[in-house]
């Protein structure tokens, strides 16, 4: 499937702007963003004016717009990396592709630039196979299929809720790891897309992600903020928490989550050692989150994504609330998010 075969009208590309000057970023993506509608959301805490080059079909949202749509008190939900969720909220499209503003197109082993947008949409349009592992990875791609021993009743797959891409150069490692291995860069181009099996947990990164907004939009929750959350990925966990919720809800509703291609090239930004100096709250929160999600069972009656989020928030409050105030705040944010989602998406 080439970019000519995907319906660009079904896609919004949502970019969270943590940097004011988006010239280099947008110029590098121009050929792949061409023909698509862009939503650029400015981090409400960013003071400078955004610099956006000509030639893009783009709607820009800033703090004022956020306050108009969700009210001043709720606008804080969308600070820092979470600004992109505002874009998810106001989009009217079926698919969202979201890339961090410090990433440019990667090159594949043949030297061709990778069209990450098209690859994400292809991933989303093809079924996922979470109920049984296919050892040749994506069975629907050219040149591959289901292997011997794969049950036939499972070969039509399930709808794909999300497509998690990867990163060459600066991989999405945490601060301690990157600080320890300062020179390490990811050079391995693994030519595969695969479905993450049902019940398996994974850390979903927000750096290079796409999802079916119609299917699971409300499940992408801007909820968990670690104390002292910063403006570099090493100082956040919001996407990892969001991903745990998304995966759990997808598993519950019988959808799939894919990982692998496409790659983006992630540039240097920030200093891992510097980020280490801040107390690494994220570690503790993840340790607590794992057994929670492992044993969590959403009620059978939760059939809509919104209901799943509400039930999840309830469980977070009940089981994790006493462990750390960050969890109670996350639970509150998840409930608030659904309220906002319903109000924004019901009004015409």
């Amino acid at each position, binding site marked *: 499937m080439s970019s000519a075969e995907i319906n660009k009208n079904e896609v919004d590309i949502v970019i969270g702007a943590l940097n004011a000057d988006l010239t280099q970023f947008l110029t590098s993506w121009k050929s792949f963003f061409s023909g698509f509608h862009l939503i650029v959301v400015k981090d409400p805490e960013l003071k400078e004016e955004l610099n956006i080059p000509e030639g893009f079909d783009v709607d820009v949202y800033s703090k004022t717009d956020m306050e108009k749509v969700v009210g001043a008190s709720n606008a804080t939900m969308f600070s820092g990396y979470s600004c992109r969720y505002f874009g998810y909220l106001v989009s009217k499209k079926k698919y969202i592709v979201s890339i961090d503003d410090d990433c440019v197109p990667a090159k594949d082993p043949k030297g061709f630039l990778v069209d990450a947008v098209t690859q994400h949409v292809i991933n989303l349009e093809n079924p996922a196979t979470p109920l049984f592992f296919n050892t040749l990875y994506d069975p629907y791609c050219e040149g591959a299929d289901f292997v011997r021993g794969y049950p036939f009743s499972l070969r039509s797959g399930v709808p794909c809720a999300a497509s998690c891409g990867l990163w060459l150069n600066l991989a999405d*490692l945490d601060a301690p790891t990157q600080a320890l291995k300062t020179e390490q860069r990811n050079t*391995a181009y693994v030519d595969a897309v695969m479905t993450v099996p049902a019940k398996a947990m994974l*850390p979903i990164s927000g750096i290079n992600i796409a999802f079916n907004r119609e299917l699971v939009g409300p499940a992408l929750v801007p909820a968990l903020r670690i104390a002292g959350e910063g403006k570099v990925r090493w100082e956040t966990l919001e996407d990892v928490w969001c991903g745990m919720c998304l995966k759990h809800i997808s598993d519950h509703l019988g959808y799939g989550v894919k990982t692998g291609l496409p790659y983006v090239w992630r540039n240097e930004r920030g200093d891992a050692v510097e980020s280490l100096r801040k107390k690494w709250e994220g570690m503790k929160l993840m340790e607590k989150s794992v057994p929670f999600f492992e044993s969590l069972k959403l009620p059978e009656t939760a059939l809509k994504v919104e209901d799943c989020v509400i039930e999840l928030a309830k469980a977070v409050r009940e089981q994790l609330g006493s462990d750390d105030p960050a969890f109670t705040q996350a639970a509150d944010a998840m409930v608030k998010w659904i309220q906002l989602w319903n109000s924004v998406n019901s009004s015409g």
Partner: protein
Amino acid sequence: MVEPANTVGIPVNHMPQLKDELDIVIPTIRNLDFLEMWRPFLQPYHLIIVQDGDPSKTIAVPEGFDYELYNRNDINRILGPKASCISFKDSACRCFGYMVSKKKYIFTIDDDCFVAKDPSGKAVNALEQHIKNLLCPSSPFFFNTLYDPYREGADFVRGYPFSLREGVSTAVSHGLWLNIPDYDAPTQLVKPKERNTRYVDAVMTIPKGTLFPMCGMNLAFDRELIGPAMYFGLMGDGQPIGRYDDMWAGWCVKVICDHLGLGVKTGLPYIYHSKASNPFVNLKKEYKGIFWQEDIIPFFQSAKLSKEAVTVQQCYMELSKMVKEKLSVIDPYFDKLADAMVTWIEAWDELNPPTKA
């Protein structure tokens, strides 16, 4: 188009890891000329050849390989009445080799598997990669999006819980195949020309709770950790089914590994699979399996072993009871298979008595 590697001129590995701790098990009915191509990588290791079919035939083994060979007469002699659990006229008989081995690790490979080339054109030393996979921990409790975190150049990604980064012991390393992919008969019939040309440069742990189709063509495992669960079932002569031997072993192995906290990896290494078997013959063998697996899969997906099952043998015996209880209704074959599973464990324990400390 993908080609096998040309290994002429590659010197024999002078630093073979685990040389005295690993056996290579090869089932065959013909000569083993294919070993010539594998010489640089496999010659230092001991081979266990399991000769299927006519025991009066002589199997030609290339010069310089150290091996022991067992034909059907040997199997009958060694196991006596218990030989009934070892398949005849099917490569499933290879598991006899696992049983008689005295080594810690096993690498098993089919005799139509040649050396593959990586994207740079270099010959892939499949055994070396399997050993790396087995000696490195697995990470079944949380999926790492950068695949094997212990590989050179990789690591755990942001958000991966630190308490899970030590990993668990790896019991199985499942390799893949370039050229002729391991498709079932219906797929082979529909896509006779499809070749696997995609070299996916990754090893990954299959998450806990997830089943997979384990192919026995290019497989290695820690015999001490999981050996008794690697029974390849009743296939071939006198049996209603074939080409499900490795599948059956894989489902049992995965359930037991999940229960015991062991890891199963899949991905690299690739071998070059040179021969496509006849899809019409395959269809006849697989036919029943295609229907039965629809019931077998849910059975394994919901199989729960008791807390008291702490050794592989105990787990396997429990599984055999569950097979008899729940799968015999599908076909009396499963009743026989459950009995054979018990026979296998009894034979395994006889040939591998626990060593006194």
